């Protein structure tokens, strides 16, 4: 009965395999194969941690499963809830409260309280990870939105590399000058995410949401929001200087930018490894400018960050290993090692690769970070941020950027009503 044997084998083998793998300490965010140099450094750090931790707990067979995955909102929840997810992963700051409230994250309060590096992390980052008095994440890096410009196209158009576009009008003019449909170059790359739109709303003097832990109110439907969206829609529909796909994702924009099909784009320095290693851009052609000021002269960008989180369903043994891993990753020794290796391998140094502690702020290359952080503000810490983000993006923003004749203020007001009713 050959088929029967195959069947039994087919079911028994994987069952045995998964029994053997149960309980292995698993870590996410290993850099993908496309970013070979980064992956090398990451693997070195992990191997070092593995060996040291195994010695510490006296278990020479301590194994770590390194998984090359990143946080994707819709997929992260079943992964964590499935009980076989990572023990340690990095998630974006704005998703953390929602995940914590859903019961997917382990509380790290006792560990963090006993951590000697605690005081070096700015308190505002701890607050963003605190839900109902318990701390659910450890801040590991930060980023700020900047304007990325291709040096070759910028200089060719006659601009100086010391003169970023100062305000909205200048940005529009530059985009029009750099836009060259005959050669397939678009002037400005903009992905209609709520964060990117939020930057422009702040530059117009307003906010996406107003309030605090006591209560939140949508304010994107007020005049600054309307002004920002009108400006962006003008860039898209009347000036025609945006990329051809109105709903292009950040990755698609990065590809186009690296290949010279986009002259400017809104991005974060964290994209630099992708631009250089994965899409083959020459690092010398990259210019980083701060975002322009709005009509009222307000400079604004948004600051975000990532947090290490621990799975709520991790076994006590794995939770201890997770905390040891986090501590090791954020320790001064490890951070310096990383900085040295990145220099050796010729990788661009950008703040997003390093911890938010103040250790490295004296090192060269971090001054930009200091400047940018001064005008950057984090996302509103709304409890249901991933859901609100999805609702607004697919409900309103996609509509406003694909329909030329949409009524901006009407749509925004409707969206505000809906958000207020459903999420706040």
């Amino acid at each position, binding site marked *: 009965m050959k088929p029967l044997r195959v069947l039994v084998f087919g079911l028994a083998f994987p069952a045995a395999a998964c029994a053997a793998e149960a309980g292995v300490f698993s870590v996410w965010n290993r850099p993908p194969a496309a970013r070979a140099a980064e992956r090398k450094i990451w693997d070195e750090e992990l191997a070092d941690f593995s060996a040291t931790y195994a010695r510490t707990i006296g278990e020479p067979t301590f194994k770590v499963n390194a998984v090359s995955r990143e946080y994707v909102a*819709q*997929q992260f*929840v079943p992964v964590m809830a499935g009980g076989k997810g990572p023990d340690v992963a990095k998630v974006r700051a704005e998703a953390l409260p929602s995940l914590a409230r*859903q019961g*997917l994250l382990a509380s790290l309060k006792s560990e963090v309280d006993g951590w000697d590096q605690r005081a070096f992390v700015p308190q505002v980052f701890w607050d963003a990870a605190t839900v109902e008095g318990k701390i659910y994440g450890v801040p590991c890096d930060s980023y700020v939105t900047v304007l990325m410009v291709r040096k070759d196209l910028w200089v060719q158009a006659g601009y100086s590399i010391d003169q970023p576009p100062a305000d909205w009008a200048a940005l529009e003019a530059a985009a029009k000058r750099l836009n060259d449909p005959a050669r397939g170059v678009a002037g400005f790359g903009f992905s209609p995410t709520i964060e990117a739109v939020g930057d422009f709303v702040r530059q117009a003097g307003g906010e996406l949401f107003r309030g605090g832990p006591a209560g939140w109110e949508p304010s994107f439907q007020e005049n600054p929001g309307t002004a920002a969206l009108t400006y962006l829609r003008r860039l898209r529909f009347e000036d025609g200087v945006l990329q051809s*796909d*109105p709903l292009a994702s950040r990755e698609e924009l990065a590809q186009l930018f690296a290949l010279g099909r986009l002259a400017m784009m809104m991005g974060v320095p964290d994209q630099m490894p992708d631009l250089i290693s994965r899409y083959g851009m020459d690092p010398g052609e990259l210019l980083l400018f701060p975002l322009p000021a709005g009509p009222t002269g307000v400079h604004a960008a948004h600051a975000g960050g990532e947090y290490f989180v621990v799975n709520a369903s991790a076994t006590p043994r794995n939770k201890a290993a997770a905390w040891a891993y986090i501590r090791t990753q954020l320790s001064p020794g490890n951070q310096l090692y990383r900085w040295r290796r990145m220099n050796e391998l010729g990788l661009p140094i950008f703040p997003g690769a390093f911890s938010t502690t103040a250790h490295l702020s004296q090192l060269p290359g971090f001054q930009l970070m200091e400047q940018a952080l001064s005008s950057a503000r984090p996302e509103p810490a709304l409890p249901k941020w991933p859901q609100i983000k999805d609702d607004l993006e697919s409900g*309103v923003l996609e509509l406003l950027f*694909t329909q030329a004749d949409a009524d901006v203020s009407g749509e925004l007001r409707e969206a505000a009503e809906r958000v207020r009713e459903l999420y706040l």
Partner: protein
Amino acid sequence: MNPREEDSRLERAYEGLLGGDVDEGVAPIPATPWEESPEAGARLPGWGGFFARPGVVAWTFLLPALAAFFVFSWLPLLRGLVLSFQDFGLVKEANWVGLDNYLRAMSDPQVIATLVHAIAFCALSLALGFWAPVALALYANELRRGRGLLKAVFFLPFLTPTVPAVLVWRWILDGGYGALNAVLSLGPWGPVRIPWLTDPALALLSLVLVFLWKTTGWNALIYQAALRDVPAEVYEIAELDGTGLWQRIRAVSLPILRPTMAFLLLMQVITTLQIFTEVHLLTGGGPANSTEMIATYMYKRSFLYLDIGYAAALGVLLFLALLGFTAARLRSLEES
């Protein structure tokens, strides 16, 4: 029995069962269950007396499948039903909310929108692609040579895994850099930049296009299989009568195909109501939710909004809708 005799008996029965000339086929004998036949009283050998009892034997055949169905099909459905009356978040405890989820579902504009999209999708795909497989099958039936090549070419989309195929289509339908726009730009009207996937009106059309690409060959093959059953005499009579080609098609081919058409129509409605992969990969729910279908909405609500009770309620409603539709269709088929 002599083995050779037994073989030839088996052979004849095999042939009759699987084809050969319709006239000479072995007609199936109406079954009296073995248990009612006179031999049943005799002592049955093998497997011991208990297991040879008719009822028990039937159970040993049915049990594995029924157990599998119970665990992997009926139990989850039941659990889904239970979940639909609860408010559940995958990790925390569930609490009962009664009919709350259902009431919310019926007044949720998004749910109504997904229904509208599903109906539009079904109607469009039928309007644009119902007759193409029929015509293809009729054509293939006339071919003397080259039928194999035709089958190979048109069956290919069905054999291709959905995910890579849909990804290719996403790249082809890209507004700025896609091949479809490139091909259309070859005309005298110059470069064309139709936003196939980013215009709310066109996105559904693009979905229909991909769906038809995938299923036309398969449908045509089924029609062709049905057409092969028509005996030659019917056509010869029609030809002798001097009826024209169109009348022949209407009088002979279409009635033959009618039951197959009804069957495929039913399958198409069921498939279009449940479509997920193509939508998720091609448009992700569409520009401004314009191609959100029931399945993608359920996925989003389950795992992004963690509104599992609500998604379960939607699932139950979907199941009931399919059940109702199928029952109505079968009843109308019986009546006709």
